[in-house]
């Protein structure tokens, strides 16, 4: 019983990470109706920037917020400069460009910061008041941070005019222009937000798995699974999906398949969700009158 509880809690802790990656993916999807295959690599690159700042003597939270800001700007610029010209191009073109970005960011991480594995300290020290029996201080702290991010995003999309405008621009860019929304800038905003969230996720993950250019590859896959499971257009769903994926991963690993086929589990989850329940558990089914 003790062991089972441990697996579940550990799964929930991992789930926070998957959920945050899923959140970034949902962000871009909501804003642009595209899936950003380069999300993981962008997050890794952001984390490297934070690492480098901390190595240069910056205090943790200073480096954290600066990295988030830089990532936001970077995401915005990527959209404005590289993606805007192909806004109207077919899906295939966009996907190929995303793959191109994936390769470039991965290469940049290796090029500027080399391939040796680095350690990245958590801002939530081990022996603080936050440590409990089932959760380490870091897990608790990251959960808090991500919860704040989630609440902020949810409120942003639901209650602010810009959030509504972003959703409108994603769903129907032509009509959005007819109400005066600057559609191109909405897309840029979406990318900026996603890049910022990705950076936060990367910084929460790095203390656990250590920092190297390929840090996010497997995690990205889990992020995809979580995003799809929760409904690709639902931020809350993404987080819940993350928890489900995290717990499933641990339970299946400990009691059913063994720990070696984790990526296959993610694959099966993705395919099953896409074929059986494409809108995910919490996604909205959009009704279209033909």
């Amino acid at each position: 019983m003790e062991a089972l509880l441990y697996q579940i809690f550990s799964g929930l802790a991992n789930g926070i990470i998957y959920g945050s990656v899923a959140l970034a993916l949902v962000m871009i999807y909501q804003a642009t109706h595209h899936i950003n295959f380069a999300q993981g690599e962008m997050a890794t690159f952001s984390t490297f920037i934070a690492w480098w700042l901390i190595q240069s003597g910056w205090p943790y939270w200073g480096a954290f917020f600066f990295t988030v800001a830089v990532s936001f700007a970077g995401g915005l610029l990527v959209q404005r400069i590289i993606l805007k010209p192909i806004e109207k191009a077919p899906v295939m073109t966009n996907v190929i460009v995303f793959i191109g970005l994936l390769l470039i960011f991965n290469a940049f991480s290796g090029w500027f910061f080399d391939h040796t594995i680095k350690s990245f300290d958590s801002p939530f020290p081990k022996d603080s008041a936050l440590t409990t029996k089932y959760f380490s201080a870091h897990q608790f702290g990251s959960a808090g941070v991500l919860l704040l991010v989630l609440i902020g995003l949810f409120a942003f999309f639901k209650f602010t005019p810009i959030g509504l405008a972003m959703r409108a621009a994603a769903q129907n860019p032509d009509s959005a222009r007819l109400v005066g929304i600057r559609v191109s800038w909405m897309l840029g905003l979406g990318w900026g937000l996603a890049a910022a969230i990705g950076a936060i996720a990367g910084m929460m993950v790095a203390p656990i798995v250590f920092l190297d250019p390929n840090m996010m590859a497997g995690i990205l896959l889990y992020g995809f699974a979580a995003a799809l499971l929760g409904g690709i257009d639902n931020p809350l769903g993404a987080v819940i999906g993350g928890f489900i994926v995290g717990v499933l991963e641990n339970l299946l690993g400990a009691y059913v398949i063994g720990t070696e086929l984790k990526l296959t589990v993610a694959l099966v989850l993705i395919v099953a969700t896409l074929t059986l329940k494409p809108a995910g558990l919490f996604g909205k089914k959009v009704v279209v009158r033909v």
Partner: protein
Amino acid sequence: MSKLLEVGKLCAWYGATQVLYDVDFSLEAGHITAILGANGAGKTTTLRALCQVVKTSGSVVLDGTQVVGKSTESVVRMGVAHVPDGRGTFTGLSVEENLRLGAYARGNKAEMLEDMERMFTRFPILKQRRHQQAGTLSGGEQQMLAISRALMLRPKLLLLDEPSFGLAPLIVAEIFRIMRTINKEDHVSMLLVEQNASLALDLADHAYLLETGRVALSGPSDTIKNDESVRRAYLGY
């Protein structure tokens, strides 16, 4: 009387294909003007050209400001609300969210809430369905929503593309009655594109007839309505 809209030598293209050839027309403030013509005459293109959704050349002056060359969003922010063919509703968003978006460009929350209440009074069915996904509304309800959304902008000029399309006659009559009310009470100038010529001529003050991208005929709608030879030759009734 001042001219709200003056269009001179307007040409428009879809890609490499030219569709409008030196179209001239104008609209007085507070008036309703109809653009009539057969399928493919260029009526929808004219409205799209005004909003700079298609490539244009020539001159479009709205309230003294040149519009050609601006982005669609900028034209809208100048006070031009376009109800496109097909309604253009945000089918994935709720009725209320659609209305909020209509007022997005104005950025004034208090006025927006005020206007939304007025729309609900005018179209009670929308109030009933305010939290429903817009895509689940019937055709007539969506048209009411589309018009309301356009009005949320408090536009100087309302462009309507085939509002009667695909709707039952009773609902069309209702919508046209409401459009007349909007014009009279709120003093909204309208440019109306319609295939149903008799309906349009009943509502409008002035009319232009387009034929393969050119203006073939123009005049006060009463004159056109009562001229039998024009009606038979061009309007089919």
